[in-house]
């Protein structure tokens, strides 16, 4: 059976190429769309996910990271006095205006944190040192945005909302969904770049003491703090991602494209497998006359679908991974972790098998006239 399935599959090269093209097309399209989706979701929330905090305290009703409004820093002292709180720090995220030395301007997102704290720091610092941010009017930005920001090396000077700023380091791979580059700076500098009033902050980052039940800590915080929401990092991350992906429709577009890719794949593959089955229908009839069960014939068809799936996936995923690699330096961020790649193989297999199902009912009946035809 193996040989009949394989031989028939490879016999008609043109059809095989059409089938494989359909599968590869679908795999690449779905992989890239899923990769974009994951890329978007990680970028929308990566500042939150890398914060190292257990809780984010935000102004009441704030739906996502970028709309935070300032609240009184009195809450900081109440938070520090709450049982189960190990560390509480102020944290600022605020849109601002970046002005290059040549006068051209660009939006940026100022991120103000305490350089002595372990929370809210930049990650993947590839040049310079986070401790340099203790000096006033210093920033760390990402290499990806350096040309956009008009800086190329440590020491370059710019202005943020009219206040001078000196670049003291670079990160790599920290992108933003809003396309406004992040400028990491000390909390104090951020208050001026923001600007945020002296006794105000836009967030509190809170770390619970080891062994404390997080819900108990949260209840304690809620009881003490005023006019704020206390969210777990995971909740706030999800809310922010949700807003950008579904509140704005960006995610829906990407998911729709992925579903479309899958449908096109199923249709193309179903069409070619069906045509191949019809072409070989007399052979299937002969097999049944020889005493083959329906199961035997299903296995041939499914085997062909599985082989096509494996080849198509193999080529498709390589193309998708190449796209992932080149996206590191390009406009869109494609992320394809191993579990997604594995899941995609399952999806490809399911796509091909369900496409094959269409032709399976064709072979359950043999027409004697067909096998006896001269």
């Amino acid at each position: 059976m193996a040989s009949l399935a394989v031989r028939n599959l490879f016999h008609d090269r043109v059809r095989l190429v059409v089938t494989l093209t359909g599968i590869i097309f679908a795999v690449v399209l779905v992989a890239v769309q899923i990769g974009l989706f994951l890329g978007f979701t990680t970028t929308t929330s990566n500042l939150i996910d890398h914060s190292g905090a257990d809780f984010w305290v935000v102004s009441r009703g704030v739906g996502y990271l970028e709309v935070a409004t300032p609240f009184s820093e009195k809450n900081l002292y109440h938070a520090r006095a709450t049982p189960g709180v190990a560390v509480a720090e102020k944290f600022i995220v605020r849109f601002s205006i970046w002005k290059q030395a040549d006068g051209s301007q660009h939006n940026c997102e100022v991120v103000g944190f305490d350089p002595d704290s372990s929370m809210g720091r930049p990650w993947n610092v590839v040049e310079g040192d986070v401790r340099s941010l203790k000096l006033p009017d210093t920033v760390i930005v990402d290499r990806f945005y350096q040309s956009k920001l008009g800086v190329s090396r440590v020491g370059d000077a710019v202005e943020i909302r009219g206040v001078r700023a000196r670049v003291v380091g670079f990160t790599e791979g920290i992108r933003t969904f809003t396309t406004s580059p992040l400028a990491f700076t000390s909390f104090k500098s951020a208050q001026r770049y923001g600007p945020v009033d002296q006794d105000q902050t836009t967030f509190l980052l809170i770390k619970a003491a080891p062994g404390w039940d997080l819900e108990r800590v949260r209840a304690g915080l809620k009881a003490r703090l005023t006019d704020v929401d206390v969210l777990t990092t995971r909740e706030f991350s999800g809310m922010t991602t949700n807003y950008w992906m579904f509140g704005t429709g960006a995610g829906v577009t990407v998911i729709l494209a992925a579903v479309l890719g899958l449908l096109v794949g199923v249709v193309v593959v179903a069409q070619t497998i069906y045509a191949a089955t019809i072409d070989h229908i007399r052979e299937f009839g002969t097999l049944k006359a020889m005493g083959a069960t329906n199961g035997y014939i299903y296995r041939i068809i499914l085997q062909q679908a599985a082989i096509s799936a494996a080849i198509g996936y193999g080529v498709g995923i390589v193309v998708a991974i190449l796209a992932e690699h080149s996206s590191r330096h390009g406009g869109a961020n494609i992320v394809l972790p191993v579990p997604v790649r594995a899941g995609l193989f399952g999806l490809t297999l399911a796509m091909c098998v369900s496409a094959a199902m269409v032709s399976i009912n064709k072979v359950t009946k043999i027409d004697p006239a067909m096998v006896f035809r001269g």
Partner: protein
Amino acid sequence: MQPIIEVRELTKTYAEGAAASRALNGVDLNIYPRQVTLLMGPSGSGKTTLVSIMGCILRPTSGSVKLAGREVTRLSEKQLPAVRLRHIGFVFQGFNLFPTLTAVENVEVALELKRVPRRERRMRAGALLDQVGLGDKHRVYPADLSGGQKQRVAIARALAGDPDVILADEPTAALDKDSGRTVLEMLRRLAHDKDRAVVIVTHDSRTLDYADRVVDIEDGRIAAERDTDGEPYLVAQEGGWK
């Protein structure tokens, strides 16, 4: 002699209602081992229909078919493949070889269906091809074989299942005279030397030379049975003439 197939009061009506056409209309027939039985009759008389029902690839409308003593008309769709596998070998006018497999692989498919272990298949398939005189064509694809050679591969494939009955529908219609003779001679030897029941559907009167018995079908009925000398055929049934 015990018949291997007993057909009683068999009818077959294709389609239903106004379009209904009765292809078989009360057929009684026994098929015996060690005999070549010819089914002859005009086009549309029901020969292929009868062979299909005897081979368990078509269900009759009514009547009974006993194959090796077992009533097969009431078997389920799931049970029939095993019956065909065990008892029936088909030989077709159009050969129906698998074009992407070599001669020896075509025969191996039948052995695989029979669940012969992989190691043995190649050897036994080769031996079967040798038997039909194709010892030098094992690795040749059907497209590169002559019609007669293709039909011999088909016979080897039918024999691979070691069936009691070989049902051949117009096996020589697509062959030239000599190849036709070779194939018929082969089928006759199968009946006489290997105790198979061989049923051949044919239009070709030259086939008479190779037959033991002729059954004439007309309009879905058995019109006459005779031995090849033209004598009415003696059927060992309730000890009388039929």
